[in-house]
C-alpha cells in the first residue's frame, strides 16, 4: 500500500517499534539536512539510525542536540532569520529523534512535523509562499523504509 495522506502516515508510524521509529525519523531529518550545518544535529541523526544505540549514548547525543536547538532560538526583539529558524527546527527534529523512551510515544510523527516546520521556515525565508512538498517526500521515505 502506498501512503498518500497524513492519517495513513500517522497510523503506519504508530505501528512501528521504537527503534524503527527512530530509524525512519532519522531519514526524515536527513532529507532536510541542508537546512542545518550543525555537527550535533548530524550526530544525533546518525546515532538514531543505529538499532543498537545504548542508553548512555542516547543521553550524550540528546544533550548535544538540545544545546543545538537552544542556541538557535530567535530571541525576543532579534531580527527574525527564517533560514536560521529552519536550522532551529531541524535541531529540534534531531532532538526528537533521540528522545528517551518515556517521551517517545509518537516519536516519528513528532520528528516529521518538526521537519515540516523547518521546511515552512525555509519557504518563508526564500519568499516562496507557503508551499512545499515535504509531506509527500516523507510518505515516500516511509514506504521505502517499509519495503526494506
Amino acid at each position, binding site marked *: 500500500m502506498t501512503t498518500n495522506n497524513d492519517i495513513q502516515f500517522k497510523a503506519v508510524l504508530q505501528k512501528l517499534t521504537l527503534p524503527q521509529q527512530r530509524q525512519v525519523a532519522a531519514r526524515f531529518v536527513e532529507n532536510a539536512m541542508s537546512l542545518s550545518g550543525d555537527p550535533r544535529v548530524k550526530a544525533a541523526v546518525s546515532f538514531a539510525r543505529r538499532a543498537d544505540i545504548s542508553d548512555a549514548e542516547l543521553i550524550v547525543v540528546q544533550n548535544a542536540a538540545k544545546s543545538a536547538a*537552544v542556541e538557535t532560538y530567535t530571541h*525576543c526583539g532579534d531580527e527574525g532569520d527564517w533560514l536560521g529558524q529552519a536550522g532551529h527546527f531541524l535541531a529540534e527534529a534531531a532532538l526528537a529523534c533521540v528522545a528517551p523512551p518515556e517521551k517517545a510515544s509518537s516519536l516519528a510523527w513528532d520528528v516529521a512535523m518538526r521537519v515540516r516546520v523547518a521546511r515552512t521556515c525555509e519557504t*518563508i525565508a526564500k519568499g516562496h509562499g*507557503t508551499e512545499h512538498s515535504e509531506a509527500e517526500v516523507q510518505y515516500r521515505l516511509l514506504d521505502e523504509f517499509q519495503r526494506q
Partner: protein
Amino acid sequence: MSASLQRGINVLKEVIDAPVASFFNSCVHCGLCAEACLFYLETGDPKYTPIHKLEPLRRVYEQEYTLIGKLMRGLGLAKPVSDAELEEWQPLVYDSCTMCGRCSLVCPVGNDIVYMVRKLREGMSVSGHAPEGIRGAVKRTVEIGSPMGVKWPAVQAVIKHQQAETGFEIPIDQAGVEYLVLLSSMEIMNYPEYLGALAKIFKKAGLTWTLSSTAFEATNAGIQIGTSDIARVIVKRIVDSAEQLGVKKVISPECGHAYMAIRWEGPNLIGRPYKFEVIHVLELLDELRKKGVLKMKDSFDEPLIVHDPCQIVRRGGVLDAPEPLINTVATHYIPIVDKQKMNWCCGGGGGTSAIHTEEAEALRVKAFRIKKRQIEEAGVSTVVTFCANCRIVIEEGFDHYEMNTQLLGLTELLAEHLEDEPEGVAS
C-alpha cells in the same frame, strides 16, 4: 551639550510627574529594593540597587524641580547629567533591569521603581542611549509591525502548517466573532505549536475566534524601549482591528510585557477606554475550567514547579488562574516559596534578552542562578511557565548550567492532555 542629549534631558524633565517627585522624596534609603533585585543578589554589587539605577532621573528632578537643586545649579555647584553618564548608566537601566517589579512590591513607602525606570528609559532612548538590540526591535515594530520582523505571509505559513498538523481550523479576519487572538513574534517563530494548542482548545470549547491579518502582533517594543509615542501606535493598531472586527474580547498571548501593554497601559496610551475587554489567555482558560469545558483525558504525573512570569502575574495581576489550571492537568505540582507575586524573574524580561553584549549575557546567566536554586530546592525536573520570552531565557539557563530539566508551556500542556474530539470532528 549635544542635540540628542538636550532632547533626552527635555524628555526627562517632561516625564517627571507628581508620582516621580513623591517617590524620590519618599525614599528612606532602606535598601530593601536591593534585596528584591536578582541582579544585586546574584552579584552583590551595590550598583545594581534599583533606586541607584535611577540616579540620572533623580538628578534632573533635583536640579529642575527643587529649590536647593535650582540654587546649586545657578551657582554652578550641581553636576549636570552628561552623555558619558547616560552611557555609563545604560547597563544599569537596560541590561540589569527586567522591569520585573519585585523592587516596587517590597518598597516600604510604596515607590513604584519600575514606573520610574520606564520614565528614565524614555529619556535614555531619545538621547540615543538605548541598546542597539532594542532600538532595532522598535524600528522593525514601527516599519513592519513586529519587533522580529515577522510579516503576515510568514504567519500565514505557520497557520497553514498548524492547521495541517493539528487538523483544527485557524480563522482569519472573521468579523463578529467573540474573541480576537493576539500572538507574539516569539510564538510565531519559536513556539508555533501554541497556535495549534489554542485552535484545539477553542474548538473543544465551541468558541468563535479569529486572528487579524493587520494586528496579529501583541508585542510592544515601544513599552520596552520606553517610547510612549511608538507604544501608542502599536496599541492603536490592535484597537482599530478589534473594533473593526467587532469582537467582544481580545486575548493577550503568553507574552509578559505584551499583556501589560495592551491590558493596563493601552487605554491610557490612546486616551480612551476600549470598546472590548482584554484578557490574558490564562484567564480565558480558567473561565473554561470553571465552566467544566477543560476536561482532561489523562494527566501529567511528573513533579513540577511553575515559573510565574513577572509581567503577567506580579505586575499584570493574573494571580488566581495559573495554579488551578496546573492542578487540572498535573498530579504533582509543587508550590515553591517565592511564587506568584513574589516569584523571581527569569532574568531576561523588559527587553534584556534582546541585548547581546558579552557583559549583558554574562550578567543574565549569573542572575539565572536564583531560578536554578528554586528548581534544585524543589527537586523537580520539570518547570511550567506561560511566557514565550521566559521559556527561551530559562531554556538557555538550563543549557548553560547543564541542568537535566524540561520546560513546558502551560497552554500547550493543557491542550496536549485535553480530551480528544470525537473521531473525524477535528479534521
